[in-house]
């Protein structure tokens, strides 16, 4: 009898490459491998197990088997429009850890805890403590002014003419070059932040500074890293008047993610930010039914279903 391979398991986010963009072709599974087949029959293997998130651009089709394989290895599939305007995402189901979700929800619902989490986010982001005795609302106002100043500063540093962060999410190509570069760069960052949040077992929709969007928490976490990683990259590329802004931005973002070891840092940062709320992860209630089959120690992150 033929030997049977052991079942597939996700590996930690930090051991993966950040993002891969694919366009035009059919994503399928051949001999157990994830492949992109183009109309001429050329097959390209995509190492999904080693990628944090796969961005599917217009012109791609995904088979059922491909979605199953991506989910088994914990690769987030993100359907993006032109220039990374998000359409939909799946492939790495969230909500695998009830204890983490309850913990995150408790932190978000408790006003005192939420304020502590928000303060920690600003501390990490601006590298200094925000002024004491301010509400979340007041902090958001301070942040808004500061962000505009940072955009101005970085634009001046790279000699880019900059008016404001303005873009029409429904129409790509409407913005100026710096805004287009920024949209493209932030799309990459949001993708890996969402993959990391899901992998760590938290909910992308439960935000602390941002609320009301399916990716509120993604924006919260991405903002911590945004000005140190993708914003300078976007302005640097914009200053060169690129012929292919998206491609150049993605290449430069990839370098930046590697240099800053971003994938190693996201999950610990999420834990650090939430820990600032000073609430412990809830224990299971006493009358809870015990797990019949004990969970195995896995290679992947806590939120990976394995």
């Amino acid at each position, binding site marked *: 009898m033929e030997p049977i391979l052991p079942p597939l398991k996700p590996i930690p986010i930090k051991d993966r*490459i*950040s993002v*891969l*963009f*694919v366009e035009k072709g059919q994503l399928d599974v051949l001999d157990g491998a994830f492949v992109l087949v183009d109309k*001429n*029959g*050329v*097959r*390209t*293997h*995509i*190492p999904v197990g080693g990628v944090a998130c796969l961005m599917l651009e217009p012109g791609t089709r995904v088979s059922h088997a491909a979605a199953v394989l991506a989910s088994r290895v914990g690769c987030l599939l993100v359907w993006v429009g032109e220039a990374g305007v998000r359409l939909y995402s799946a492939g790495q189901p969230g909500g695998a850890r009830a204890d983490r979700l309850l913990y995150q929800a408790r932190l978000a619902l408790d006003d005192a805890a939420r304020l502590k989490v928000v303060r920690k986010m600003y501390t990490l982001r601006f590298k200094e403590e925000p002024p004491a005795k301010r509400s979340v609302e007041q902090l958001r106002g301070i942040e808004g002014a500061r962000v505009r100043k940072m955009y101005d500063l970085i634009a001046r540093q790279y000699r880019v003419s900059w008016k404001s962060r303005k873009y029409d999410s429904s129409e790509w190509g409407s913005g100026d070059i710096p805004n287009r570069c920024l949209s493209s760069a932030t799309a990459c960052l949001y993708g890996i932040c969402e993959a990391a949040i899901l992998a760590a077992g938290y909910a992308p929709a439960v935000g602390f500074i941002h609320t009301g969007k399916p990716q509120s928490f993604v924006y919260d976490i991405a903002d911590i890293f945004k000005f140190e990683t993708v914003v300078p990259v976007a302005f640097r590329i914009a200053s060169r008047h690129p012929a292919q802004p998206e*491609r150049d931005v*993605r*290449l430069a973002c*990839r*370098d930046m*993610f*590697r240099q800053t070891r971003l994938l190693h840092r996201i999950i610990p940062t999420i834990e650090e930010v939430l820990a600032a709320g000073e609430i412990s992860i809830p224990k299971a209630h006493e009358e809870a039914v015990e797990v019949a089959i004990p969970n195995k120690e896995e290679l992947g992150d806590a939120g990976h279903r394995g």
Partner: protein
Amino acid sequence: MLVIVVENAPPRLRGRLAVWLLEIRAGVYVGKYSRRIREMIWKQVQTGIDEGNAVIVWSTNTEAGFDFETLGPNRRIPLELDGVKLVSFLPLPASQESLEVEDEKM
């Protein structure tokens, strides 16, 4: 780390590669050398490969942690996707595969 794989290479090239690298399987050579030595060895492959084909892989500071280069005709072609290198596998020429493909489409 440095790996060279040759297919259909003349014996003199294979002997030459074995001077610096360890042939762990037929046509598969491994070693660990600096960039300059790697380029010198790859030059020798380029000169001596004849009708055959070769690929060289080395660890480097890219996000994937390695990079590679190919030489000579092969159905596997490197494909660059925004800074990550993957490999495309070409289908067989129409004359050899047309019948099989037609069957699959039915």
